């Protein structure tokens, strides 16, 4: 198909979609309406189980099975990246050269690295209380680690980041989620049911039954997944060279 024909096809399809979508919007309940039956029920269920952050309660309690699916997508995406970006036979590794980074930038990276790691852990740990959770905190902690690449050089990062262990950590976190789910089957409840642990005192770290456990498992999984992903991309961009390379 020529570019021109493709553009016309796109315009026709886009115009059709735009018209139908606008017509649908006019019939939708107005923005900011007061009727949210699912939301009201989710909030009630969350408060009944002493989880202060109802969004975490929806993710890790009421729709924990759905989150299992999301986690599987994450796992599969990482697996795909690892396979796609592996070193092939016609490529070789060139050792990364040391980099001279301006001193203030280097110092900043070394100071902020621990602060960002602790913030990531804080966001994971308070997932069932204040905004945050495993998904967000895991990304923050994993990004923090890469300040070593930005502030120093790639060799510094490679020293503190044995990729193999993070791959194992990823798999362990995924299985921890499954095991916590299977534990729900004890006591004749359902898979991933939040019945095995006491709900605890409202608005404390140990409240919410299995929510903090699943939250921590997701935090570990996301952090390991992001580290493994970025490791593959960094390897490709910095170390691995094709045959034509020097």
């Amino acid at each position: 198909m020529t570019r021109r024909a493709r553009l016309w096809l796109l315009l026709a399809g886009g115009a059709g979609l735009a018209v139908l979508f606008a017509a649908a919007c006019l019939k939708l309940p107005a923005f900011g309406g007061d009727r949210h039956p699912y939301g009201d029920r989710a909030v009630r269920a969350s408060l009944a189980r002493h989880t202060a952050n109802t969004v975490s309660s929806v993710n890790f309690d009421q729709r924990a099975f759905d989150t299992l699916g999301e986690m599987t997508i994450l796992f599969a995406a990482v697996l795909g990246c690892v396979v796609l970006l592996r070193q092939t036979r016609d490529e070789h590794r060139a050792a990364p050269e040391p980099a001279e980074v301006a001193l203030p930038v280097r110092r900043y990276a070394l100071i902020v690295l621990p602060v960002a790691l602790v913030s990531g852990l804080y966001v994971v740990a308070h997932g069932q209380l204040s905004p945050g959770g495993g998904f967000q905190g895991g990304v923050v902690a994993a990004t923090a680690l890469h300040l070593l690449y930005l502030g120093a050089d790639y060799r510094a990062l490679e020293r503190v980041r044995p990729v193999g262990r993070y791959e194992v950590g990823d798999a362990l976190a995924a299985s921890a989620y499954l095991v916590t789910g299977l534990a729900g089957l004890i006591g004749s409840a359902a898979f991933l049911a939040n019945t095995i642990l006491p709900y605890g005192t409202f608005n404390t770290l140990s409240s919410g039954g299995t929510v903090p456990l699943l939250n921590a498992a997701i935090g570990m999984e996301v952090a390991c997944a992001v580290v493994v992903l970025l490791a593959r991309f960094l390897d490709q961009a910095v170390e691995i060279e094709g045959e034509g390379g020097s």
Partner: protein
Amino acid sequence: MSAVLDVLPYLVAGWVFLVGCYGLATSRNLIHAVGCLSVCQAGTYVLLLAVGYRDKATAPVYSDIKPGSRPVVDPVVQALTLTDVVVGATVTALLLALVVQISKRHDTVDPDELSELRG
């Protein structure tokens, strides 16, 4: 003002999605196309959150307010969106890995040149 605001968020979501689709179809560089796909995703986030919003309400997080003291917005759509954001990023990573692979195999990241290669 309020009549406009009743539908504006939905229309913005639709616009963001469509403009992302336009970029995807006309892109001359696969990395740019992946960026456009993440713009499309942003449209879905806006739509989901707009559906769950409630006037004069606050976030359904009770770490610093008393339950029942203020109306809250819908937590279900927020839970859907927040997992989507992180999973979307890893899917972006997978697509970028494919782009790297394509550039290795075919020495180009222009989708038009790629289809010429095949034909």
